[in-house]
């Protein structure tokens, strides 16, 4: 069991995880840092088990890839917290827990008598993280949430997608990750504080507010309104800097590449390569080697948005002559600031990631095969972040975890 491992940072701690999709990744982070995380799901299985894609596209409670991804590293038990008998088992588990992470609608656990406010006197050192769409109070408290609703009310959706069309979400639910990351950071901070002081507390995580953090931290995007009186909007494959829009993603022969801001230190070398191919067009004029979009320093030539758009057109036509592999070869030889835009199969073959032993294969007995997982998001030198334990099957650890409790005669 990971929690017995001295080399894990969080091995002294036990976490009870009652979350749905909105907060489920947080428990995995604690588990892979060494905590004993017990995922508690209803006897019929967590809703995430019913979310696709499924292994071989065949639905089944043990076949959801999302379940596997969000619950790796955890142990699993089934408890129906709406039943009184199971609630008393839950309270037994609480006695050994340092942290609870839950994502019930505000007030829902209160009606069952197992909200934090019902339990805090009995468990003064317990940390209780509540992850919800909008937080435990306020006019949206009882609003229903989903990933795309969180992105919208957190201000990110407005910035994603192409101008002139409806904004778009990401295929992987980002607002749920934002909420989970908030639960992990806030929960960890509160556990640390509780160990030092003996005082637990509730951590109230709002998905909406966590989404706002991803708008360039503590005001980097809202500042366009408060400081400059403008709203920036989505810019497709470009970065929007308010007074200027600068293309980042360009098509090439076999896909796309991501180019650092056009007039960075690599631009003169880019122009030379375009000249070599007779493709520099008007960029052959030497003034372009000193071009800037920002306020020109001595020796620089300040160009307009129109100039820059035209230059991007020349670059686009040149890049379309080459494949990503050919471009990356030029990147290495000429120190260009260009990265290939990649998808999963290409990342699985990445030399850089291979050299760091990044990807991990974990055997899932229920589907009879290994599944590839992204490796540790963070590499710690003394207490490794371990990606080596699969998500639990339904009720897999009931005997081990609840057995001692049932011995008291309280289990149904």
């Amino acid at each position: 069991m990971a929690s017995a491992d001295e080399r894990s940072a969080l091995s002294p701690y036990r976490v009870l995880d009652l979350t749905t999709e909105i907060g489920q990744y947080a428990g995995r982070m604690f588990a892979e840092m060494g905590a004993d995380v017990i995922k508690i799901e209803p006897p019929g299985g967590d809703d995430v088990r019913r979310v696709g894609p499924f292994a071989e596209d065949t639905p089944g409670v043990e076949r959801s890839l999302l379940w596997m991804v969000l619950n790796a590293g955890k142990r699993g038990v089934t408890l129906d917290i709406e039943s009184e008998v199971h609630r008393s088992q839950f309270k037994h588990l609480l006695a050994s827990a340092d942290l609870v992470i839950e994502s019930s609608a505000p007030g829902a656990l209160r009606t069952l008598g197992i909200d934090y406010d019902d339990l805090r006197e009995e468990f003064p050192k317990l940390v209780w993280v509540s992850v919800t769409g909008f937080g435990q109070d306020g006019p949206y408290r009882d609003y229903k949430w989903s990933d795309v609703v969180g992105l919208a009310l957190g201000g990110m959706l407005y910035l994603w997608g192409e101008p002139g069309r409806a904004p778009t979400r990401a295929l992987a639910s980002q607002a749920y990750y934002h909420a989970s990351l908030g639960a992990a950071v806030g929960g960890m901070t509160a556990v640390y504080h509780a160990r030092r002081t003996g005082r637990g507390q509730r951590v109230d995580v709002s998905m909406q507010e966590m989404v706002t953090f991803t708008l360039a931290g503590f005001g980097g995007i809202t500042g366009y309104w408060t400081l400059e009186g403008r709203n920036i909007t989505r810019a497709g494959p470009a970065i929007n800097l308010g007074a200027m829009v600068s293309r980042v993603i360009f098509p090439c022969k076999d896909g796309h590449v991501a180019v650092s801001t056009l007039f960075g230190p690599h631009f003169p070398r880019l122009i030379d390569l375009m000249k070599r191919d007779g493709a520099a067009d008007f960029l052959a004029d030497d003034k372009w080697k000193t071009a800037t979009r920002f306020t020109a320093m001595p020796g620089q030539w300040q160009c307009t948005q129109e100039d820059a758009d035209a230059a991007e057109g020349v670059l686009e036509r040149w890049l379309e002559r080459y494949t990503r592999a050919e471009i990356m070869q030029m990147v290495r030889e000429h120190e260009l600031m260009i990265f290939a835009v990649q998808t999963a199969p290409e990342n699985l073959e990445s030399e850089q990631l291979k050299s760091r032993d990044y990807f991990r294969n974990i055997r899932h007995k229920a589907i009879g095969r290994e599944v590839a997982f992204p490796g540790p998001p963070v590499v710690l030198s003394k207490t490794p972040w371990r990606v080596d334990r699969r998500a639990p099957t339904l009720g897999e650890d009931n005997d081990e975890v609840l057995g001692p409790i049932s011995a008291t005669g309280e289990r149904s």
Partner: protein
Amino acid sequence: VRGAPERADGRAAHDSGALSHVKVLDLSWVAAGPLVGAIFAQYGATVVKVESAVRLDVARSSPPMAKEGRAIDRSGYFAAMNLGKLGVAVDINNPRGTEVMRRLVDWADIVIEGFTPGTLARWGLDYDSLSTRKPDIILISMTLQGQTGPSATVPGYGLQVHGMSGMGTLIGWPDGPPTGVTLAYPDYIVPMFAAFAGIAALDHRDRTGEGQHIDVSQMEAMINVTGTAIADYDVNGRTQLRDGNRLLAGEAPRAAPHGVYPVRGEDRWITIAVTNDEEWRAFCDVLGKGDWLADGRFATNDDRSTHDNELDELVADATSNREGRELMVALQRGGVPAGIALDQEGLGSDPQLRHRGHFVPVPHGGWGEQLGELFGARLLETPPAVQRAAPTLAQHNEHVGREILGFSQDEFDALLAEGAFELYGAD
């Protein structure tokens, strides 16, 4: 659930923060590294940001920009990355500057840096040197691709990692390019992984006396938030690609209607996520489209999933003349998940964010008032708070030199005269 109580000078009193005894030395630049320290500062840590007055942080010239103050201090972007910190300027190549740096290391529990791998060794500030001097130090290194490997020193920005990690290919329309680079998204996700690991490492240090080096590759952290992209390719051979606002479900039926629909006004949108029959009935009721309930194409979720394109068109027709916020409130009252796509002005006036005290004005040393924001994980007994605005360049030289490092006034004056502490524009 507000910021901590205000002091008379307008700054939040924060002696009760969960990390109020923690000392952080921030040597990092631009965005991803600085935000790690900014999160620690919200939970009460004392964070000293060290800059060069010659080689300025790129963030200092990045928009949005305040209208007043010295050019180098006007960036709202820099302010967003460095909220709550003390700021000093030190010449790290000056022998006495090196001495100042050593004193800062001796003071710190956690050091954050984002230099190209290998750079810190030039100043004797690499992990081996630091840990020899101070075995329990925690060093957080923020890079694009990690400390090791053939691409460890390849230059670039978080914007490009957005493309390389696969995230870009998951955002946008199936007939359009990869998108989502309107802002440098990885720069704002990865700091949360680093902050989590940093506090866990601090906890481990307190219990064992052991420090460590935390190697954060933006690329490796970002692939972790691409959901099932890796597993789906490995198990099913499917390369996941952007699909507008559809839910990902593989070959299985997906919830419908689920999408982003126009409402009244220029570039105004509402998101609607109907996931079951109960929400479907409420949705039709609020929109006054009882006839859809009798339409065989939309009878069950599987039917709605099969006909989702037709359904999306009908929904867009029905929402396009509605006022967005009114429709959101009506749908939510009916029990349907819905939300309008807020722009920056809309965030500032959003009633929920206001209720939660999300925006916190603090006096800024260069331009009147910085509108700080709170981290969305509220520890209710030791709440996050804004200790102070972001520093102007070299703003806290004397405070840090005298109060934190304990130099006498004469010693500090000498260090300043010798150029160990720097002032902007001084030779």
